[in-house]
């Protein structure tokens, strides 16, 4: 049984200006108790699913900034994972923030079974890094990736962003070139989205945020999707590119209906067709775990319609797309019976390729992905 584990570390040195994920700066005093609670949850929840399904295929420690935790706490977590979820997890990723990691930290990760690192770099331009509230410099980012490679990691990813304030097409091109030079195996590129409650949203409301014009952002998008495949990074999902065989199996799991157990504050789980969310409040999380309560809560009882819609729009995020065979196997209904008309409409609009295997986004379809996904809501 293939399944994954997501572990959330809700700490950061500083909140980036665009970020509205559940992560908090200045909570160092909670780290110890959090680590203990998290290990407890791994021991109870993790173990029980391992007994049910065997060792997970993927483990992903994300945040926040997992590497904002002191190495000692990280060791405790890795030890708990090895003890309760198993050793030699085939894909074991930790998100790293340059500026929080050094060679010793990498050794700790490596010793704990981690075999894949994802670096939040966002841009190889110091001015832009400052403008978006990152704590590290370009030099530190480069040094971190090199140090990881020297430590023996051979499966590395960097996150980049486009559409940032003050960013030009040239900046995007430079960042991609830099990532290429660093010889990473995987690149995720996200367009900036303004989210409520972020520094950027506030600046925007005060008229202090100047974003690139729509055409400029579109040019960046086009450049990325043309250039990366040329460099040998295939687009296997809306925002993700990889060398052959280096796709993130964990992230693919989200789109391919693979169950996952989320551990830690604000972590999401997808288990036996139901989605759960752990409390996002760190103190509440610690308290619940310490009192023997579950941190998770069912988001909502899924209706058969919801399940079908999610199966469809999640699968469509991938290059492989929505498979007739998998759809029929899961729902005991033909894909065309449910979505035949939607698919042919979208095909006519040039957004979808439809064939005997199923359907998948065209280049234009990727560009208007949301529009296509929304059409798959019944």
């Amino acid at each position, binding site marked *: 049984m293939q399944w994954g584990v*997501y572990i*959330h570390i809700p700490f950061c040195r500083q909140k980036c200006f665009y970020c509205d*994920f559940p992560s908090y700066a200045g909570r160092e005093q909670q780290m110890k108790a959090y680590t203990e609670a998290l290990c407890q949850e791994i021991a109870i929840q993790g173990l029980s699913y391992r007994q049910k399904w065997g060792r997970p295929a993927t483990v992903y420690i*994300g945040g926040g900034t997992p590497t904002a935790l002191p190495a000692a706490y990280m060791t405790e977590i890795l030890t708990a994972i090895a003890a309760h979820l198993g050793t030699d997890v085939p894909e074991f990723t930790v998100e790293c923030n340059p500026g929080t990691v050094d060679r010793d930290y990498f050794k700790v990760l490596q010793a704990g079974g981690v075999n894949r690192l994802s670096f939040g770099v966002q841009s190889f331009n110091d001015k832009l890094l400052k403008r978006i509230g990152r704590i590290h410099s370009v030099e530190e980012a480069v040094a971190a990736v090199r140090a990881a490679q020297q430590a023996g990691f051979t499966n590395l990813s960097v996150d980049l962003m486009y559409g940032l304030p003050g960013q030009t097409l040239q900046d995007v091109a430079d960042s991609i070139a830099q990532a290429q030079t660093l010889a990473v195996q995987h690149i*995720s590129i*996200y*367009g*900036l*989205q303004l989210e409520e409650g972020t520094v950027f949203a506030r600046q925007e409301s005060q008229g202090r945020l100047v974003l690139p014009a*729509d*055409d400029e*952002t*579109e040019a960046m*998008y086009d450049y990325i999707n043309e250039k990366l495949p040329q460099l040998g990074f295939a687009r296997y999902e*809306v*925002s993700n590119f990889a060398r052959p065989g280096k796709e993130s199996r964990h*992230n693919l799991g*989200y789109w391919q209906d693979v169950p*996952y157990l*989320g551990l830690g504050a*604000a*972590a*999401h*789980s*997808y288990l036996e067709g139901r*989605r759960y*969310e752990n409390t996002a409040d760190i103190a509440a999380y610690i308290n619940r775990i310490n009192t023997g309560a579950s941190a998770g809560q069912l*988001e*909502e009882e899924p209706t058969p319609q*919801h399940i079908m*819609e*999610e199966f469809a*729009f*999640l699968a469509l995020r991938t290059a492989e797309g929505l498979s007739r065979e998998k759809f029929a196997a899961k729902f005991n209904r033909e894909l065309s019976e449910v979505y035949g008309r939607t698919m042919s409409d979208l095909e006519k*609009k040039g957004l979808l390729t439809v064939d005997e295997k199923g359907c998948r986004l065209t280049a*234009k379809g*990727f*560009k*208007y*992905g*949301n*529009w296509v*996904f*929304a*059409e798959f*809501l019944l």
Partner: protein
Amino acid sequence: MQNKNIRNFSIIAHIDHGKSTIADRLIEYTGTLSQREMEAQVLDSMDLERERGITIKAQTVRLDYKGKDGQLYQLNLIDTPGHVDFTYEVSRSLAACEGALLVVDAAQGVEAQTLANVYMALENDLEIVPVINKIDLPSADPERVKEEIENTIGLDASEAVLASAKTGLGIEEILDAIVEKIPAPEGDENAPLQALIFDSFFDSYKGVIAHVRVKQGKIKKGMRLKMMATGKTFEVTDVGCFKPQPVDVGELNMGEVGFVAGSLKDVRDVQVGDTITFADRPADKPLPGYRGVTPMVYCGLYPVESSDYDNLKDALEKMQINDAALVFEPETSVALGFGFRCGFLGLLHMDVIQERLEREYNLKLITTAPSVIYHVYKTDGSMLNVSNPADLPPQTEIEHIEEPFVKATVIVPNDFVGAVMEISQEKRGVFKNMDYLDTNRVMITYHIPLNEIIYDYFDRLKSATRGYASLDYELADYQESKLVKVDILLNGDPVDALSTIVHKDKAPSRGRQLASKLKEIIPQQMFEIPIQAAIGSKVIARENVRARRKDVLAKCYGGDISRKRKLLEKQKEGKKRMKAVGSVEVPQEAFMAILKID
């Protein structure tokens, strides 16, 4: 009850001057309902009425009151709808009375609408009893208001009752004034029946119930009666009065007010203003003042989902059961598909119907911009009534067009006279008259196209006069105007539902404004959308909705799928409120864009 102890009256007041509070106090004071029953019953009217603070459906109530002379009096309060759309209904309610309370806010003074209704009451020979309400307000100035009443209406206000419905002050005085000043009804109770219908409603058990005032003769259960205008005959199954819930009393005598029912199925058989008489021994003539229902404003109503057509039809039919003023017929639009052309008494009536259709019947509707009825004289000598701009014949076939004009009466403090004139002139109004009501307030009369009123005339007046302007209007006549049709093309294709008829001189600016408003309303799509405004084949304005560059969901944080789902649902919901016109997704509000340009 002896005739001499009956008093029939209504209340004339501007919105917010306290009509319903005074009515409530009278009901309470006379013990017709206890305070608890009041809350449960009197306030239990339509949600919309409460939200908008206006009366849409009139209420009638019989109050028993022991006068100062120790005798028992039957006071019939006939409530009137408080909006300019319902002028005719108001006139019929007033025709059912011998007197009216004129309620004026002690701080605000007389308003245009009040004045129009008072004049109407005077035309009906009603005795007016002035009541100055809200005298407990710090800003109350009853002496000034009295003076205003005397100057504007020419009524003796020296004996005006000073009241505060809020505190209960003056309620007994009002009741005594009704008894003393308003004349008792007069008429021959042995003559053939003449009963005036002033309202009606539909009851699922009893059928249509007519609110009536017996002018002569009497009504008893079992009688065979006849509607003089519609010719409908029926047998009386229920006859009674409102307290305020209907109470069966078996008969209504000359001078009394109450209800009659007789298994009538269709509200159209029971028309406001019609006279009920004996089927076998009819009165020699009906009561004066009847006229059929004439809608003033039309618009198209279309379901967003074409599969809702039948539901919309059912809903309209159900609404019509209780609303004789609502008319509709099927209509087809190239852009919007199958829908209905609906006629309303006015803009408020239109709003109320639309809102009820959406709320009570859960329908998603597209409403086209309201239109008046144009008289189109064709070169072949025929005349067409056109209420849908899309139906306007080609320019070459039109000899000339006439449009309805109204007499609009505006009352404002004199500081704002300039503003009113400027707006009215701009709205093609022709100045008729100006009167000083007192040293501060002025009444201005304009002859102005109804078409201009239904756009933003009142809103503009309000904002230019800091809310002080009050407006009343009545249909005056039809006059020739230089009118043209402005068409809108989206992506090169004309959209019939966006066509509008405007004055020739205003067409270029209206076209530009409309195109630029549509540009704001129509969301970016995957391709560029040219918007053009044209008269015939001549393009007078052009805008572009730029193509949406991309629409990509970013990062998925830690498998949080629900958040993605919510975003998509929002997107889908937004799309549901749009109508695909050709390849362009057009939001509902685009069809009302013409009302939103400034």
